[in-house]
């Protein structure tokens, strides 16, 4: 096995056509073409629009990544690709490109889990991913707490959202406040000028029997409804909606619940490390609150750079490189794209 496997990773699970190249723990390229602007006018991702954009962007993105990394294709040790979870029609574009590239070059192909990749990308930040560790993954489609014992073959989901994902709540609240899609970055920006304690929005599943039954689970649907009611009430009384305060108070409620449960998990299950990942981990308040609370609890917090938190190809390459260095079997030629691939399947057989 090469010490630093050179792996190209392809990610097309949602609206980013992304290609990353890594050599072991070194990031060589992280190239992204996004169709987000095409979706903004619809207020959400339109799967067929995303899939069409993936096909158009695939070869140009591959080209740019190879140029950035300064590698030639025959130098690669393997190809990795997101096999799921994600949008079915979008995933197959990446999976088919990866298989074809593997066949053309005579290189092994690893179909990998998108969520495990979000954790694996932490290994590109200068030191290997700590194992075992707890991981909090928060994005537009997921809000999960994981126990990661071995990134390649032992990830156990301990909690997840029972309704909306955190990123979904950001999108919906942004729409309520008249902010553009995607909601996360816009709410983050507007919230900078607001008071996070102005409105006491509910923290879902954090008390009484809910906490017993859903110890490590999340719920953001009630929070979204509470924000909607508050805004409606405000408008009904003819008052101007204090957008910055609403955004800051909403963001505080989300960050509070996420961090509270993640730190609780670390304390109760004895994890020394917490890894944050997914698009919502780019949120500035979530990052600062997590830093503060982890320090208080004696937990070492690891958060990838914002550009590696959102969907990217480097994270896929990082997990692929780990799989190569640990001698994992490549995927078969006929492995499928699985839109609801469970998080405990890190590699496709």
């Amino acid at each position, binding site marked *: 096995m090469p010490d630093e496997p050179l792996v190209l990773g392809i990610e097309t*699970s*949602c609206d980013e056509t992304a290609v990353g190249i890594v050599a072991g723990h070194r990031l060589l390229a992280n190239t992204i073409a996004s169709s987000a602007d095409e*979706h903004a006018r*619809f*207020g*959400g*991702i*339109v*799967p*067929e*629009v995303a*899939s*069409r954009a*993936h*096909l158009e962007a*695939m*070869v140009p993105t*591959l*080209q740019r990544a190879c140029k950035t990394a300064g590698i030639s*294709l025959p130098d690669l040790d393997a190809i990795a690709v997101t096999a799921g*979870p*994600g*949008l*079915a*029609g979008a995933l*197959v*574009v990446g*999976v*088919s*490109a990866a*298989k*074809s*590239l593997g*066949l*053309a*070059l005579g290189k092994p192909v690893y179909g990998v889990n*998108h969520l495990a990749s979000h954790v694996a990308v932490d290994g590109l930040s200068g030191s290997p991913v700590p194992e075992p560790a707890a991981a909090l993954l928060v*994005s*537009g*489609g*997921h809000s999960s707490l994981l126990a990661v014992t071995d990134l390649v073959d032992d990830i156990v989901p301990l909690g997840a959202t029972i309704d909306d994902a955190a*990123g*979904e709540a950001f*999108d919906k609240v942004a729409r309520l406040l008249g902010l553009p899609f995607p909601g996360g970055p816009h709410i983050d920006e507007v919230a900078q000028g607001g008071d996070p304690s102005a409105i006491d929005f509910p923290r879902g599943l954090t008390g009484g029997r809910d906490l017993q039954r859903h110890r490590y689970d999340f719920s953001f649907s009630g929070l979204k409804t509470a924000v909607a009611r508050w805004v409606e009430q405000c408008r009904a009384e003819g008052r101007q909606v204090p957008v910055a305060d609403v955004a800051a108070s909403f963001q505080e409620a989300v960050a509070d619940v996420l961090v509270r449960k993640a730190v609780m998990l670390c304390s109760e299950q004895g994890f020394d490390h917490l890894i944050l990942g997914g698009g919502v981990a780019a949120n500035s308040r979530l990052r600062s609150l997590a830093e503060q609370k982890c320090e208080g609890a004696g937990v070492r917090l690891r958060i990838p750079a914002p550009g590696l938190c959102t*969907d990217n190809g480097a994270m896929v390459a990082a997990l692929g490189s780990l799989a190569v260095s640990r001698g994992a079997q490549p995927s078969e*030629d*006929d*492995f*499928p*794209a699985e839109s609801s691939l469970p998080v405990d399947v890190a590699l496709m057989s």
Partner: protein
Amino acid sequence: MILALDTAGPYPVVAAVSAEEDILFAGSGERTRAHAEDLAPLLREALSCGEPSAVAVGRGPGAFTGLRVGLVAAQTLGWAINIPVAGVCSLDVVAVQFGLSDGWAVLDARRDEVYLAQYQRGIRLDGPMVLSKSGAQERIDDQPAVGDTELLRQPDRRARGGTSIDPNALAAVALVACQSRSPEPPEPDYLRSPDVTWSAANSGRSI
């Protein structure tokens, strides 16, 4: 050797053909809606027959998700080993497969519509296009038609499994395309805009 592939129909189809027009490999998948799974094993077999000097790929019309599987595979392969990639109209393959000289090639487009193209002495004259079944019947009238023609006679029914592309016919069309001085681009011929409805847009957020 020329590598040819098409994923516009219900099954992926792959052929490898030598410059002397010998078919070195011809194969099809057997499962519907499994292009992403079943194309790669066929490609591996085809590539074991020799080094391709060009690729030809079906650009549809056909079901969007399947169509993209073949197109992205062909584009990526062509880029990786630096060989030209030509697009072929999947209806041209149907015309060749049924030995059509003058008339229409027809494929199921679902939603009470058909894809079709018109041929004269084996050359495409018009199309590809997508029409309602009744509109297609009107255009075709009493001219010969091949492919999913039962749809036209029984407008309320779907084609039984649909016409399967014959890899040998694909190889023949691919040879011509790869020898052409101005081949069609290896890009999809969707013929339809993406369906965007507000309800879909509102619930489409993912990952």
